[in-house]
């Protein structure tokens, strides 16, 4: 029996989760502390049939100096998705490696290591190149990495490309004198 | 016939049948394309490919054996052809056939692949030894039914001379090996599928499962040599098969000759030779067509699968054919 309220109570009692926000009736998010993520995921997988790991990703909260990891789980029977979030320090990003939970976790952690610079000690092949090769800049998916500047600095941009702001173009060229633009 | 004239005649016949082999490759590519719903490349495309490959400006050196591989292959092809009488009763096309040429031909058929294996091995590319091991393993497998069929022939006609075997098959379809030893023919034709490396026995040169076998590193003029050999070798194998199992071609007999005999009061010798060549062309074309049609309609066996296949069904058929031929 899958009752979202019972689940919320259990998560609060066991792992100090701060509530469950339901976006849709089949999608909800909760947040726990980093050290509790592994146990919480295992608990959800074994006791609440959240057996399927959709993905692991990260959102760079640069304003708060945090990295927010999102573990999206799916319960096929209850037709419910639950996203477990946790926030880690952006300057020293270290997270517990959960490669034992699901087989694909190691791959996700390799990608996060490369794209966000999060370290997962003990994760197999975590230090190998995943998508990039010989990358020596800051992790590219960080918010403060300027991909355009890097591209123009590195890849010999062909002259002649003019990029114009479409709003400006509409205001001046297409509909001159329109107030709402 | 002096040895000089003989050499000249053989050179001429090699030239003729090499061109025939090229055109055969081109036309078969077109037939394959038709099965796939395409128009396909021009018939003369093999010529252009060979010119281009020989006109490449650079080539890579991998060692002496690497260069000798295609040479061995070409030697195998030429040797195979040189000891097969192409048209019976035509001195121009009887090449160097002698009383024991069947054994020599069967040696030459596999001589080229061994040389190729050595050359490909020295190229150092990991794909080459994979293809070589597959190729040699398969070769030993499809040798078995082929040799059994040939033994059946030798026992039946009590000779090892191709000329004599062809001679014995003259005078109508009833005398062909196809009619006298059908089981041996079946075994031999299945072996021919493997010998000519069409599907389902083409894992050696498969593009998908590890490209593309032994010739991975061969390029430029070496590849051109290999292509030339392919034309000659195909023609030689086809001629051998038609000679052994499908009545061969004769300058003084055969359907076309009879047709000429009806319309003309007396058939001149030259015209008879032309009739013999035409008979050979028709028969080889049909035989090769069977291969190609089978090839386009099957996936590939893996190496061990094809070896199991060859050592099971065709070998038993060949044994049965041998027994029938003896008793």
């Amino acid at each position, binding site marked *: 029996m899958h009752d979202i309220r019972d689940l919320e109570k259990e998560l609060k009692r066991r792992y100090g989760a701060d509530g469950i926000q339901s976006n849709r009736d089949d*999608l909800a998010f909760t947040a726990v502390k980093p050290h509790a993520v592994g146990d919480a995921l295992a608990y959800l997988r074994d006791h609440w049939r959240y057996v399927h790991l959709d993905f692991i990703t990260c959102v760079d909260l640069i304003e708060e100096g945090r990295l927010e990891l999102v573990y999206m789980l799916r319960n096929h029977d209850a037709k419910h998705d639950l996203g477990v979030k946790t926030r880690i320090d952006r300057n020293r990003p270290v997270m517990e490696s959960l490669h034992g939970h699901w087989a694909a976790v190691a791959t996700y952690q390799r990608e996060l290591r490369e794209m966000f610079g999060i370290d997962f000690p003990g994760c197999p092949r975590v230090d*190998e190149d995943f998508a990039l090769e010989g990358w020596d800049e800051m992790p590219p998916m960080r918010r403060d990495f300027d991909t355009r500047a890097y591209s123009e600095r590195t890849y010999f941009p062909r002259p002649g490309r003019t990029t114009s702001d479409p709003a400006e173009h509409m205001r001046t060229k297409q509909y001159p004198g329109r107030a709402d*633009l | 016939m002096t040895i000089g004239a003989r050499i000249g005649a053989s050179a001429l016949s090699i030239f003729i049948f090499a061109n025939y082999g090229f055109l055969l490759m081109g036309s078969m590519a077109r037939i394959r394309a038709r099965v796939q719903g395409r128009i396909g490349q021009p018939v003369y495309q093999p010529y252009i490919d060979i010119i281009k490959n020989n006109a490449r400006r650079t080539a890579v050196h991998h060692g002496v054996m690497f260069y000798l591989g295609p040479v061995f292959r070409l030697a195998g092809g030429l040797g195979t052809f040189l000891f097969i009488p192409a048209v019976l009763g035509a001195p121009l096309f009887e090449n160097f056939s002698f009383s024991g040429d069947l054994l020599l031909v069967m040696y030459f058929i596999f001589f080229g692949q061994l040389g190729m294996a050595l050359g490909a091995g020295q190229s150092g590319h990991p794909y080459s030894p994979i293809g070589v091991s597959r190729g040699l393993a398969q070769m030993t497998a499809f040798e078995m039914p082929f040799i059994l069929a040939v033994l059946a022939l030798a026992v039946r006609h009590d000779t090892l001379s191709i000329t004599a075997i062809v001679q014995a098959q003259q005078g109508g379809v009833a005398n062909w090996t196809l009619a006298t030893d059908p089981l041996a023919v079946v075994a031999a034709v299945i072996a021919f599928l493997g010998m000519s490396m069409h599907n389902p026995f083409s894992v050696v040169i498969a593009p*998908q499962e590890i*490209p593309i076998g032994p010739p991975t590193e061969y390029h430029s003029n070496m590849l051109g040599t290999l292509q030339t050999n392919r034309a000659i070798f195909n023609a030689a194998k086809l001629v051998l098969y038609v000679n052994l199992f499908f009545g061969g071609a004769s300058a003084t007999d055969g359907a076309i000759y009879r047709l000429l005999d009806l319309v003309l009061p007396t058939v001149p010798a030259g015209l008879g030779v032309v009739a013999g060549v035409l008979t050979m062309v028709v028969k080889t074309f049909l035989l090769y067509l069977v291969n190609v049609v089978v090839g386009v309609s099957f996936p*590939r066996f893996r190496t061990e699968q094809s070896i199991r296949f060859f050592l099971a069904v065709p070998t038993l058929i060949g044994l049965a054919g041998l027994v029938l031929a003896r008793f």
Partner: protein
Amino acid sequence: MTTKDREKYPVHVGGTEPFDLESGRYMKVWQGPQHPGITGNMSLELITSGDEVVDLKTHVGYLHRGFEKLMERRKWIQNFPLVCRICVPEPDFNEYLYAAAVEELSGLTVPERANWLRAMNLEMARLTSYLMWLGGQAGAFGMGTIGQWTVTMRDFMLDLFEELSGGRIYHMYIVPGGVRGDVPQGWFDRVWSTLTTVESVLDDVELVLFNNAVFKKRAGGLGVIDPDMVDRFGITGPNARAAGVRRDLRIDRPYLVYDELDFSIVTGDGLGVESDAYGRTKCRVAEMRQSIDLIRQMMDRMPEGPVHEAPPNVLHWKIPPGETYLSAECTRGEYGYYVVSDGSDKPRRIYVRGPSYTHAVALLEHMGPGTNIADTAGLMVSLHTYPPEIER
């Protein structure tokens, strides 16, 4: 192959190489990226012992374009030409998921007819992608004829897409608020006749493929997926259904108009096949016929009405803060978009979840050892992996 067979092979620990390549018992072979038997542009690092693969590592990233980074610095509407580039064989799923996520976050409503057209577009994309895949699966075993036939049929489907949206490969037909335009005059009739042609070719393909002893020998018993592997490896889509797991997002969690359509889940045991490459091929061909049937149903019951709800001025379009995750059943499995908005006119974070992410890396690295080196291409194609959705 089952878990028990694996025990005779060394295991990876921290990526250290357990095979002594100097011993002469093993040979390292790279299959790809420059290889005809590879899907897209990825590479497999094979360690072979004789003719048998004893270790397989997937290497991706050859197609990494940094989509998610590029989306963060483009306006919401500017991302629409971008998302479809993530998945070349069937870009429409990206278009739909991104549009649906934007609509959910911005509260934009979609007209009824637009939903039907979207679902029809997705099914046509599914059929097109399957046609491409079928050729690849047969070609991986060396049967190029099937590929020639099916890719031609795919071309006919692409003609319909082109007439509808103006693009052969990248359609950009599904936009926020509906679809970009109504169907042309007499388009449904042409779709109908094309589907008939495709069906006739499918008959030929089934005749040639499934009655073919060699194909049965090659594909049978190759890459068996046990049902208990499904959850551990996150297997979705036909790979899971062929293993007998009844999971199809179109039925479990109906999106668009799938709850009004009449169809059922295609599973391997339903077809009476094993969960190997042969069974997966059969399942996918059955799903092709199913989506042909679905397209016909939708064309019959297509309602009239507007097809597009105009969003506010898209150049200043600010999406209210929020986050959502939407998933759809694409050809290879569960395709998902996780979209985060911080209230600005650009997305804060977009994560694209492709089914090949687990199929091509974790699952393939698990199933690789023990197969014949000549079967690696067939195994990979039978999982229907597609690299760009792994690295994006």
